[in-house]
């Protein structure tokens, strides 16, 4: 390391053949999938360490979803962790807590639809607070957005706008009448 103390202005450029990069990237994809889903760790890795790393990574993802989606987490209560774990085990790509939470909410709705009616869990997506959270999340994830949601208790409409130069703008219109 004799050159550490001086700044080399023009280090020699490196060119890695695309074939080498592709093999390297495929090995990384195998590890990433295993860590994200919690199984099928590639050969050669210390399994206990890999499982600890995967667990930590999924815990971090779950925490990000909980943080970005407080109403959804509250609606699910004690079920949140079990159901978010099930969701993460089949969704190996992360787009951040907000976008992951939107996928999670949609996945919950689809999972609910797949259940026989008698075994169908309470769909958390039907609560007013979660409806608002979903609409705001969609607005925050798009630079241009218009969304309308009807809420039940009390009966009202919320209208959400998002323009490229603004944060989401929320308007609430009372509908009146009794449920």
């Amino acid at each position, binding site marked *: *390391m004799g*050159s*550490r*103390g001086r*700044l*080399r*202005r023009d*280090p020699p*450029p*490196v*060119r*890695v053949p695309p074939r*080498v*990069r*592709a093999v*390297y*990237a*495929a*090995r*990384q*994809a195998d*590890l*990433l*999938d295993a*860590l*994200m889903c919690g199984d099928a760790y590639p050969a*050669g*890795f*210390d399994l206990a*360490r*890999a499982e*600890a*790393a*995967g667990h*930590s*990574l999924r815990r*971090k*993802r779950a*925490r*990000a979803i909980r*943080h970005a989606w407080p109403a959804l987490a509250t609606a699910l209560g004690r079920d949140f962790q079990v159901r978010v774990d099930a969701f993460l085990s089949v969704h*190996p*790509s*992360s*787009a*951040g807590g907000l976008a*992951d939470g939107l996928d999670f909410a949609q996945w919950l709705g689809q999972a609910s639809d797949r259940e026989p009616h008698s075994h169908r869990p309470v769909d958390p997506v039907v609560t007013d607070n979660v409806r608002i959270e979903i609409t705001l999340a969609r607005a925050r994830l798009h630079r241009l957005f218009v969304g309308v949601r009807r809420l039940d208790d009390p009966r009202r409409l919320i209208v959400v706008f998002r323009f490229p130069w603004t944060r989401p703008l929320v308007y609430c219109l009372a509908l009146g009448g009794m449920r």
Partner: protein
Amino acid sequence: MTRATQSPPVTRRLGRGIGWRPEIDGAIRRADGLGFVEVVAETIDPRHPPTGVRAALGRGLVVIPHGISLSLGGGEPPDRRRLRHLARVADRLDAPLVSEHIAFVRAGGREAGHLLPVPRTHEALDILTENVQTAQRALAVPLALEHVAALVEWPGAEMDEATFVSELIDRTSALLLLDLSNLYANAHNHGYDAADALVGFPLDRIAYVHVGGGVWRDGTYHDTHSHPVVPGVLSLVEELYAITDAPGVLLERDDDFPAEEELIAELAAIAAAAGRGDRRRANRDSA
């Protein structure tokens, strides 16, 4: 192990710093003695930086954009759009440098949302070197590279972490973002001595230093940035400053934000540890 005083660092003096997050903006505005803050580059719109970041600039603090998504250790070259964004943020904030990680965050079209380690092999070094050189060509300011904390290691390592980082810094002329918490975590989790490993890093290339909190779970140390800084990491701060006068040291806190007094106390504890190291270095130099 003998620890001789090393030559002065290569970048400007930054002093004490903290990672700027919206949740602690108020505490940062009121904190005395700060020289710099670091912002997550991906969260900054260069046309409209957050008011807290603009306030930091107004106070004369240096603001350093810290990238988390370039995936410099990935098999694919860094994305030009992400590089352009980082360059624009640096320009808008008048930053003297930017920083990123020696890690990959995506592969096979999927995103980890987390910094994953690269194999410590010559092949990985070649790919990292080319990716870093691509990034450097797109940036108008120097790039500092941070080594990451990793619970899992790739099999078939051809060198230790300090050697790997030194080789990369040497081959790219990049600066070093030395993360003492990552060093502490890796040393404990993979069974080597952190203070011994410290002297193997290219300390004369330090741009600044990261210090973050963590927690022990089931015999494993987790670098969470959501817990207090542990005494062992503060000892490493002292060890580092006993060897060299690093240009700046910055506290990272990303979650479970403590009360303002606690945050200020952590900054003070880091400064005190650096001060103890300074005195040891001065005593050795004058002896």
